[in-house]
């Protein structure tokens, strides 16, 4: 090209470098990925990690002091698309991701230019659907070690979708199975963030393998990655004091994850607060709107305070006496790890929250599931909160070495 300049760096002069891609659908990926990145740096001294990321992941990365690649500005926003696809407390996750196709192509093209311009030893894709899919479709574009991370395997049809959705989900799963069978070399590691028993007991579709059997044969397991050491009783007390709660207050934290999808549930909880406080006057509510919902858009209730983004939300969750949350994996597992009672309300038609996450929580014996219709009855929700608050729970314990185990698997590739 006329006037273009290029420097080729001799192989031995190149510093060790990794590119981290963290899915913005569910803010929990960012927190666990930061934890993995920190572990990875201790294993590989001098490793430079760049992040190709979009809002709200960038918010978490900025707080953690991570380096965001400037090409991130070219990414089309997946969170905005998902919010656009949701209505009330309903998100057809599978169809929403299918309809995200032009965003995925765009974002893969950005990624492809980034790895053209910079030498990366390793690309880590935590549910980076675009990169995994289009690499398998264009295998000649791979020029780095590639590690794939996920916390669920298999698109599952929702009952409302009928036979057509059964066939469609099976077709997507079949394509993935064919891609993996033909191009083993495309992934240098497939890491399941969890344990073998966390995998749902279901086939990929009619005539296709069992998800559990296939995943156990094709993945390595890091255990769950919470990204933090469970806080001590002293730390919990300190958080409560910092937030202005007295020892006799019963604190209910309400949070709906990092996207704007949970807006409807926040309103339903607001509807139930007066009733819940009538049942348990000592209840105080802390409502966390998250980085993509305007706290000012929510009504005010006595005994409640509303905040936007809360840094280190896991500490606040660990300090609560009960929580009401959406069915996202990260928040639910943070509560499970902290042994707190909680109510989770999966998004309707969201296959991951209704099947994959629910299965995992049941294995831990954690949380009380409520359908949205049930939670929309203020009396029913208030009663559930009153029953759960300060309830003694004994969940299966969540491992704390997940980030280190994931990092060890990744470190072998650099």
């Amino acid at each position: 090209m006329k006037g273009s300049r290029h420097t080729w760096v001799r192989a031995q002069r190149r510093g060790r470098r990794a590119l981290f891609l963290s899915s913005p659908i569910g803010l929990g990926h960012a927190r666990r990925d930061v934890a993995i990145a920190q572990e990875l740096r201790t294993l590989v001294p001098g490793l430079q990690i760049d992040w190709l990321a979009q809002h709200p992941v960038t918010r978490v990365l900025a707080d953690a002091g991570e380096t965001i690649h400037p090409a991130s500005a070219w990414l089309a926003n997946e969170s905005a698309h998902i919010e656009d696809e949701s209505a009330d407390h309903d998100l057809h996750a599978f169809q929403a991701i299918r309809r995200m196709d032009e965003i995925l192509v765009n974002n893969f093209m950005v990624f492809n230019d980034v790895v053209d311009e910079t030498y990366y030893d390793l690309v880590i894709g935590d549910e980076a659907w675009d990169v995994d899919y289009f690499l398998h479709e264009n295998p000649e574009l791979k020029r780095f070690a590639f590690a794939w991370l996920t916390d669920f395997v298999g698109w599952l049809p929702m009952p409302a979708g009928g036979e057509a959705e059964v066939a469609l989900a099976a077709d997507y799963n079949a394509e993935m199975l064919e891609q993996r069978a033909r191009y083993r070399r495309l992934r240098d590691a497939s890491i399941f963030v969890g344990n073998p028993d966390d995998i749902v007991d279901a086939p990929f579709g009619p005539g296709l393998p069992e998800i559990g059997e296939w995943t156990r044969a094709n993945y390595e397991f890091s255990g769950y990655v919470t990204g933090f050491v469970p806080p001590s009783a002293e730390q919990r007390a300190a958080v409560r004091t910092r937030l202005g709660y007295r020892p006799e207050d019963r604190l209910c934290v309400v949070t709906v994850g990092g996207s704007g999808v949970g807006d409807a549930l926040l309103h339903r909880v607001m509807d139930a607060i007066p009733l819940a406080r009538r049942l348990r006057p000592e209840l105080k509510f802390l409502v966390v709107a998250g980085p993509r919902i305007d706290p000012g858009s929510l009504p005010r209730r006595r005994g409640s305070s509303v905040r936007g983004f809360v840094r280190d939300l896991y500490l606040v969750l660990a300090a609560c006496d009960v929580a009401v949350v959406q069915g996202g994996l990260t928040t639910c597992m943070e509560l499970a790890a902290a042994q707190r009672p909680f109510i989770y309300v999966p998004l309707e038609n969201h296959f991951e929250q209704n099947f994959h996450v629910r299965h995992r929580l049941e294995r831990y014996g954690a949380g009380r599931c409520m359908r949205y219709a049930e939670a929309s009855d203020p009396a029913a929700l208030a009663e559930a909160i009153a029953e759960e608050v300060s309830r003694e729970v004994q969940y299966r314990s969540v491992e704390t070495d997940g980030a280190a185990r994931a990092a060890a698997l990744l470190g072998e590739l650099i």
Partner: protein
Amino acid sequence: MRAVEPVESGFVDRDGIPIHYEVYGDGEPTLYLLMPDTIVSSRAWKAQVPFLARFFRVVVSDPRGNGGSGTPSTEEGYADRLQIDDAWAVLDAVGAAQAVLVGLCTGAGYVVLMAAEAPERVLGICAINPGLQLSPPLPHKVAFDFDAPRDNYEGWQKMNRHYWLADWPEFTAFFFAEMFPEPHSSKQREDCVGWAMQTTPEAMILAGYSPPYPGDEAQTIAAAEAVRCPVLVICGSLDKCQNPERSLRLAEITGGELVVIDGGGHLPQARDPVKVNLLLREFVRRAVSGRSH
């Protein structure tokens, strides 16, 4: 949600028929993606626009009878000559003295004709599965009479005006299943069927009878021989719409580059968007750098 929004959109009035266009990005040169077949809209370029608009100024327009463009009520209203002039009118409206032209199927035929008739305005052309009379049509497309009613309509017998009027959705489902022979193309098929539902079988029948331009194979060859700019031809080996021979012959006559997508169908820009995007970016850069030396 779209991956990128247009920086400009508008209409050109073509004797009472509005032609809707959109402009994305502000780079150089202007790159015009043509999709003038009434059965789809310019959204069929959705996998190209956001990527290419990072580097170039990308223009798209809807065909007569679909998207934001008007729907003529006569066969003549869909004439190839008129639609080629639509394309020139859009380039005039966006102030593009010169452009690289990319077309698919009928649109690929148009870009060849445009490069032949106004070489000073065309920096390069990419023709994807060109619909040009450079070979006989595929046998299944002419095996059955389009106008004769039948008792049953199986396979390509559905390419029939009576069937279209009776069950347009079913025809489009059949047709786009044929257009995407690549396995696991459910989303691409659904998209195309959705765009086909934005038009009507009546409009499609009028378009099908519109006057062709140029009229015969000799005139088509003459036009292809007149092309002087860089040419890229992309051909799906399993295309069931246009005879792949046409791609081979166009590349031969123009001395252009031919890229065959082995196993690909009629709409590789949708099914293999990454490959097509990279081919297009490289081609545009090459076409422009050739000019500047």
